[in-house]
């Protein structure tokens, strides 16, 4: 049974992981875009900033979402707030 303190901890950890992942998202998107002209060294044939915009950032976005879903689904069980599986 989840206690109030436990629930607060759950929410705090959720906020932390959300903030960290949003930080990654921000760096990949906006920081790389801001310095795009300086980051145009050759990366397997692409200018690096072009490759990040066209592929790298998208892969990171998927990883962020996948990781968050896994992390939270596990945390639900850890804190006893998971949903009952439907038969």
């Amino acid at each position, binding site marked *: *049974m989840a206690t109030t303190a436990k629930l607060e901890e759950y929410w705090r950890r959720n906020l932390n992981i959300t903030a960290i992942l949003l930080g990654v*998202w921000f760096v990949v998107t906006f920081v790389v875009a801001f310095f795009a002209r300086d980051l145009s060294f050759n990366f397997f044939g692409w200018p690096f900033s072009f490759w990040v915009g066209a592929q790298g950032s998208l892969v990171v976005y998927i990883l*962020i*979402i996948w990781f968050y879903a896994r992390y939270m689904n596990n945390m639900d069980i850890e804190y006893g707030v998971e949903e009952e599986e*439907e*038969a």
Partner: protein
Amino acid sequence: MSAVPQSQKAFTAQLKKVYGFYTGGFVLFVVLLAIVEQMGLPRATMGYVFLVATILLYAGIGILSRTNDAAEYYVAGRRVPAMFNGMATGSDWMSAASFIGMAGTLYLAGYNGLAFIMGWTGGYVLVALLLAPYLRKFGQFTIPDFLGARYGGHIPRLIGILIAILVSFVYVVAQIFGVGLITTRLTGVDFQVGVFLGLAGILVCSFLGGMRAVTWTQVAQYIILIIAYMIPVVWLSVKQTGVPLPQLVYGQQLQKVTALEQKLIDDPKEKEVRQIFRDRAAAATEALKDPAKAFTEGKARLEKDLTDLRAANADPARIKAAEEALGRWPKDQAAATAQWNRDRGAAGRANPPSRHGEAFPGKDDAARDVARRNFIALVFCLMVGTAALPHILMRYYTTPSVKEARNSVTWSLFFIFLLYFTAPALAVMVKYVMYSDVVGLSYASLPAWVQAWTKVDPSLLAITDVNRDGIVQLAEIVIGGDIVVLATPEIAGLPYVISGLVAAGGLAAALSTADGLLLTIANALSHDLYYKMMDPNAPTSRRVLISKILLLVVAVLAAYVASLRVADILFLVSAAFSLAAAGFFPALVLGVFWKRTTGIAASIGMLAGVGVTFWYMIATHPWLREVFFGTPRSAPQDLWWGIQPISAGVFGVPLGFALIILISLVTRAPSQETQDLVQNVRYPNLKAA
């Protein structure tokens, strides 16, 4: 898809089987058509077969999924498995603009076009982290539902309804426009007829079965659109690089394109053509200062040349040239003015080609700074807008659980990613064909696909020998972005059946998005406005019936607006993102993450956010400015920090956040009941409560 209750697991297994057979059947259908084509099926018939077969297919799914049950009609019974909801979201999300327009934008804009790739995928990070799981836990039917419950009273709900309708209607008009264009291309019918044919395809599905039918149709449409997009690109990649994975190897093509660009920038013949455009534009600007005088003087000069040459008994070739020059002079002053306006408008063709891989090209540091600022602003608006479009957020109400909602966002982005990381590869490969295979050819030996497309639609591809040397220069080519996707099958040398397939894919993309949008509008009106605000005692059957009638009315209205061929339709699509971002995002996110957010604050924040965004657009966009204030299009734009009107949301979103936070702090805290609701939304299953 039966109504008999069955376990979620068995249901998922059955779905996989059904869609497995479906995909196999579709591939078989295309193969059969390819064989029939070899036996001599005419192209127009092929177009009709694709159009009729796919629309009948969608209609069939719609009829099989018909329902009058509210939970089925509004949220597909809340049992759509994560992967299938991901596919449905993918096709709901990817519109005609993604399918046909995206690669073209990348072709024309190079690095700067990547704003759309990043913006339209990165937004899902915001959806996954900030909204989807919480909305699923809230578990109602629409986005205004959430606003109404969280912020209390009818006003936040009503504002939500208005924003949802504004955003979705703008967007759906653009989709139906796209449907009309593709139908016309596929079958050759009139544009207006095409619009209403497409409308029929949209309605059979959403009208009969609401969200349930739309979901299962969208899954089917996703499969068609992804197959249609991949085949020609993979084939083109095999032809160019020998590797069937274009996404991994187009870096080398980009290097070749970059080398060709440098050659074209320095080429003397290219410079000659660009100089001709520069001279023409300068002459036209001069002539337009006094068109009447320029017209008579110009004509008199040419006539005098001719008489002089004749009097001097000059070389017949020179006399003939002078006669031709006089013959080309416009008939009257109106024609001359039109010609000069065109010449002045074509001044951009005097610029050398921009480098595809270069970020923020510009003539100096100031111009590059403005380009960078606009790029970042656009990415921001598209991302936040993605996380605020009601037809997308609504999809996460349909999963069986919060856990599935989280997983479902991963699937959504994965299915969208497949197309989005292919589009930049396609753009580069087509550019390579243009630069290496078309430029430098003689006009007599143009490839068949070039000749065909210049005839079909000169706005997509037009080539004129400007400097009369008989050789194609890049500066002589005018290209419309849409051709990149539409002509790829022919460029890659594939049979016509693949061209038909690509058109069917574009149609699937436009129809699926239109379905989701129409449903959003109809639900906002029937569920939120009628049921929740006007008649809370209305029986389910009447609510669903009213929703269906509204759907019909809105669809016909949208088709009517689309058939008017409103200008700047693509601008309107992007505008929808800015408006949604400024309207919904702050109120939704703060509603979940900050219990102190009050209803008054949210209402004012939403209105102010949309208000400032809308105002900035109509005050600065040349076309809207003309519509609303009658300002001539050529008047200078009064931009804030050089931000283009398409990204107006960068002003609306922060304003919305700031106002909601400040006003919340000075108004009375929300009731315990509301705070409990927020608490409840934050945990998938609050067993302690």
